[in-house]
């Protein structure tokens, strides 16, 4: 039981890395950014390329891991900023409804996935083993080092993000832009730069998640489709609320594992659906969402 909760948590930790990057963009531009999936797979491959071209043979183990994560984060930030440029900037200029961003992001996600398919799909690839694959036994449960690192990274990502969002000027700017770009610029906030910074942050997170996904699940072009877990988590969490997204992700992980234990994986999606529905009926604003009440 305890063991299963832990499995759920560590699965949830992976989801939460995905969800945080996803929720960040949701938070500011108010749309589900499905291109995040593309960024994740893209950077997973970028990290791999860095590994075989640059790092292989020079460093290893956790140094290698950090190097790869760093490269992937940078690659992710660049990719996401690029995506913002081609996919969303014009839309913002035209003040298009958010729904268009959503469509644009889905298309971009497909685009990235296919770029990878074209260049990398003739074979399978995987990361080297970064950490000792020994298990750690605590209380009769076994954990892997990778689990801990994942948990650590998602906790750190959350903490840093919350700090940036709620304690810095950039954060204030980000939250301001999330209401209304024009009015934000009337406050002297450079909306373009803020949006870019947000995408860069989200992309960096995407890069980190990409490496984790690649490390845990090997590399393939559709790796990024795990973004749907981020989507579920961040909506359940309360529409772009970052803390909510993390809680949502952890819960999703635990619920999935628990359901597999109880009803088997076959019925799991159906049960998740029912649970989700009931949850939303009971609490229509998600876990941590606040509804800005409509006022006539």
């Amino acid at each position, binding site marked *: 039981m305890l063991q299963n909760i832990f499995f759920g948590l560590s699965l949830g930790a992976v989801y939460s890395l995905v969800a945080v990057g996803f929720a960040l963009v949701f938070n500011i531009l108010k749309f*589900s950014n*499905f291109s995040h999936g593309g960024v994740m797979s893209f950077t997973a491959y970028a990290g791999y390329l860095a590994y075989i071209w640059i790092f292989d043979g020079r460093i290893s183990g956790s140094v290698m891991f950090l190097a790869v994560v760093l490269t992937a984060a940078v690659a992710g930030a660049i990719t996401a900023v690029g995506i913002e440029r*081609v*996919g969303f900037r*014009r*839309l913002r200029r*035209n003040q*298009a409804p958010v*729904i*268009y961003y*959503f*469509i*644009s992001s*889905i*298309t*971009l996600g*497909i*685009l990235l996935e*296919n*770029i990878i*398919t*074209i260049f990398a799909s003739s074979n399978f690839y995987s990361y080297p083993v970064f950490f000792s694959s020994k298990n750690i036994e605590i209380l009769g449960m076994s954990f892997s080092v990778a689990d801990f690192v994942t948990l650590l990274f998602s906790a750190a990502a959350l903490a840093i993000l919350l700090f940036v969002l709620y304690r810095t000027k950039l954060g204030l700017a980000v939250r301001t832009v999330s209401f209304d770009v024009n009015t934000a610029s009337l406050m002297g906030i450079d909306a373009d730069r803020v949006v870019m910074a947000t995408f860069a942050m989200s992309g960096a997170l995407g890069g980190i998640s990409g490496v984790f996904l690649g490390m845990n699940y090997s590399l393939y072009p559709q790796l990024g489709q795990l973004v*749907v877990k981020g*989507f*579920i988590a961040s*909506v*359940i969490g309360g*529409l772009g609320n970052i803390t909510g997204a993390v809680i949502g992700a952890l819960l999703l992980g635990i619920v999935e594992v628990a359901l597999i234990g109880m009803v088997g994986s*076959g*019925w*799991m*999606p*159906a049960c*998740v*659906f*029912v649970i*989700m*529905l009931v949850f*939303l*009926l009971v609490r*229509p604003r*998600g876990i941590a969402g606040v509804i800005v009440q*409509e006022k*006539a």
Partner: protein
Amino acid sequence: MDYIYSILTLTGITMIGVMGTYMVTGLTGQFSFGQAAFMAVGGYVSAMLTLKFGLPFPLVALVGSAAAMLTGLLVGMPTVRLRRDYISLVTFGFGEAIISVLNNSAQLTGGAEGLVGIPKRVDLPLVIVSVVCCLFLVACYKNSKYGRQCLALRTDELAARSMGIDVNRMKLVTFLFASAITGYAGVLYAFYSQYLEPGYYNWTVSAEWLIIVFVGGINSLTGAMVSAVILTSLPELLRFASAWRILIYCIIVLLIINFRPNGIFGDWEISRLWKKRKPVQGGLP
């Protein structure tokens, strides 16, 4: 010729599916992220009835759409009360749930290996007739009090309520109608391809339909239909580019979204052409 026929047939079926997405997303502004699941329901129900009981096609087509509508009722009742992104989540989850149910009931549905041996009952003429009929129904719907109320609540639910519009009921009715139409598309698909598999109906198909609706112009049924034709045949036209074709497809879609922010058609409807001449006629689209 068969190649062209098959493209046309499948395009027609997609058009009918897209009509469902258009109604839910274009008319009521809800985000259907699992519309393809209704196609699965319609297809599987009708195919299984034929295989197990040998019922005739017109009957199973009817039952298939009705089954889709019934599922629509189950999903719709709770969801119409939620907000936009929550609806997209719920419909998404519903799509995944349907797939998992289909995979899991292997004795009935053949599971992941799919359902074979469905007789061929659908050909191009039938699909064309179906497209025309469905289009007529949907266009009339859009142009009736139902359509107007939907569009009203799409922009402002609170104001719509203050006009006496029963918002939830309107959303539900539209959702049901859309489910039935999409279910019918599923029936056509089943009896055309003679083979069904659960994996086909996942969220990417629903997402593709959304893209189609938006590229055509969210406010325009004409646009949705034209873009369904264009976007389903575009990959075929791009076959020469082999692996690059989806890339090119995406780029074209992106260009349209970026440079025609209201879609190809904005809110223009083809009916304007004849409405201008006979201003009082008000009946048809």
